């Protein structure tokens, strides 16, 4: 079906994906860069800061691109990064 696709799908709100909240334990990071390299959505990059261990910890570029696959958590050797689902007020009401 090679028609040109250019519109935003009309039901894209229905298919809203959970929003992510990324937590980086900066001083626990040893700067191996695995999380940056393996993130499929290219959410992270190396920051210019220097942490307690004397390395550049990662920094979030665009949190909205994160799809909560949590692969960064899996590959981090130092347990220095984790992702949780962001609870929005409205959604809280719905869930409850």
């Amino acid at each position, binding site marked *: 079906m090679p028609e040109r696709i250019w519109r935003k*799908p*009309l039901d894209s709100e229905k298919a809203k994906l959970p929003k992510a909240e990324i937590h980086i334990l900066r001083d626990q990071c040893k700067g191996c860069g695995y999380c940056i390299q393996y993130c499929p959505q290219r959410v992270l990059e190396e920051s210019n800061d220097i942490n307690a261990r004397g390395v550049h910890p990662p920094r979030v570029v665009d949190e909205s691109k994160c799809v909560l696959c949590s692969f960064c958590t899996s590959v981090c050797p130092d347990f220095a990064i984790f992702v949780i689902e962001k609870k929005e007020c409205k959604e809280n009401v719905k869930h409850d």
Partner: protein
Amino acid sequence: MVEGEKQKLGESSEEVRIGVYVCHCGLNIAGSLNCEEVAKFASTLPHVVLAKDYRYTCSDQGQAMIKSDIKEHKLNRVVVASCSPRLHEPTFRKVCEEAGLNKYLFEMANIREQCSWVHLYDREAATEKAKDLVKMAVAKAALLQPLEEIEVPILRKALVIGGGVAGIQAALDLADTGYEVYLVEKEPSIGGMMARIDKTFPTMDCSICILAPKMSDVGHHPNIELLANSEVIDVKGYIGNFHVKILKKPRYVTKDCSACGECAKVCPVIAPNEFDAGLAVRHAIYTPFAQAVPATYIIDMRLCLNKEGIIVCDKCIRACERQAINFEMKPETVEIDVGTIIVATGADVFDPSTLPNYGYGKYPNVITSLEFERLINAGGPSGGHLIRPSDKQIPKRVAFVQCVGSRSNRNERQYCSNVCCMNTIKDSLLIKEHWPETEIYVFYVDIRAYGKGFEDLYRRAREEGVKFIRGLPAEIIEDKKTRNLWLIGENTLQKELYKINVDMVILSVGLEPRKDSEIIQRLLTISRTQHGFFLEAHPKLRPVDAATGGIFFAGCAEAPKDIKDSVTQASAAAARAGILMAKGKISVEAITPITFPENCKACGLCTKVCPYNALTLRKELKRVEVIEAACGGCGTCAAECPFEALTQKHFTDKQILAQIDAVTEHEAHKKIVAFCCNWCAYAGADFAGVSRMQYPPDVRIIRTMCSGRVSPKFIERAFARGAAAVLVAGCHPGDCHYINTNYQTQKRVERFWKKMEQLGLNKERLQLLWASAAEGERIASKIREMHEMIRKISLDEIERTKKAFGGS
């Protein structure tokens, strides 16, 4: 020469007795040339014992006359001067056979498509040309030999390419007849365009409701092997014996999938669903629509987070209870052997963003008719509510614009797309059914409601208050605030300008050939029309056959058509393929090469040019061997052989040289000797005739199966006998009916040009033309151009050329 071959090539002592029949074809021929005079002329030719002109030679009476003449006058060769051999050669060959004459002792002169119809207003010149054409046919006929055909088995398996409604119907019909069928579909599910449409005209049936049971039949049929998400990548072989390679792309989900959909719920990637024309979302793991067959989900690896080969995200794997997800799947190549192939590859829709005056792609409320189908469909993104994309409100005023990408000189789409008028009428009634207050305008060029029940539907739409306005809008302008649209144009019936404001515009887009139909064309060596749809063998009598044996068409691949016509054609194609397979064998034309081992130097040149590997060099025996069943019959080996150790049966060097000699016997300096390949250029010249394109009567066409048969010595002979010019015409490079033989043609002509240059001759006198079967005008204009060119050639130059090539 071996005695047997001598007999086969028939240098026998039997007296040649030729009967010539000049057909009037009513006034089709007799209206533009003097048939009596041609017949009288024919009676003066050598070996002709009988020459008659007759009103309709192909009629039963005409056929009976030939049969009784064969017996009464002991005719052993028959020449009929009438229409194209591509039309009636089989008819007259049968007549000869029924009278006890070998069918290869028949020859035809094409005085209709290539004479009377292209020289409608020059009776004298047309009559002279017809005499020449008859003379050529008689000269060849005198050298014709009886030949035996070999039989090839036909595998009782079929391949259907494309799983739209046409492919589905063809596959089911063949499978129900009892043949094994492979159905190959490029998309993840079969169903094609019909699955995407909401209702069908004129009965307003729900499209998917009538299609889904058929799709499911395909999925369960014991005789059908469904290969979805697969593409045909290679086809080798010939009628009855095709060897096909199919690339089966990985789904990453195994057959254990129960289509529960838990995987898609957790998949974190979303994208527009192509099935819904991008109006709805899907996930990276998905099924295009609820009724899909096969129902197995599929992972779009371009989107999946695991595309780099590492399992980054395992949400779907964890969600799948049946453990049906397998990221290790690799593309597979499946090889199959089939006897027949049905091409049902369908059509694409026109992209209206190439017409900037309609603003598609810029104004959100301008949509295409296909987007409309998804919007009005209960399974679509809006749950069947017609909403306009800008604010998701139900529009109160709607306009349809017809012929978008059809019947227009812009974009070179001059053809009518057949389905859009009725589709719009159906769509307007659908809107009226749900929201009767909606104001509907239809802007059209002509409303074509030609089919059964169509006019009734059209009347109903008018009764419901749909306003039909003749005259397409020149421009659509958007009101920036409201996102409403102004249509500005001329009502050509009332001769007044209109400016109409609506909430939404639906562009009724036309159909166009699949963008990848060129690949199918090359794989199957079939032809396409000037608009790009596949070309049938005969527009009236063989409408579902390809010119290439064993290949048939169904659905929009051949031309735009509605569902009913697609289904009808699919059943016809299945029946045609079934006839071949029921017979189980077919005789192939006796146009294979014949060798003269005593001349053979075992140089192996012929084996190198053969596109079918049908020749093997036996160096130790100092000869080549022919595998007749593998031979396609192009004759390029005969053109390549420098030692006259090889020629093509029924198109022997002697026969072709005799035709050249006949053309050049009188006033050669005014004539163009043309060699046209049977499949493209000769068919194109016929097409010029059918379309009554007029061109100067200088040209005399000699038919060869392939332009690759044209040996340099033929060109040499034509020039040595004083011909003004020579034209070699064949299929476009890449489109050769015999795989790639026309590259040999090109090589030989280029070599000949070099030779002419070295001899100080004007190389423009030898022309090479690529023209497809649909390009009649290309051939006609080439002849016109050459006509101008040969007028400037002096007799002196012709004499010089004659000498250079050893003529007298």
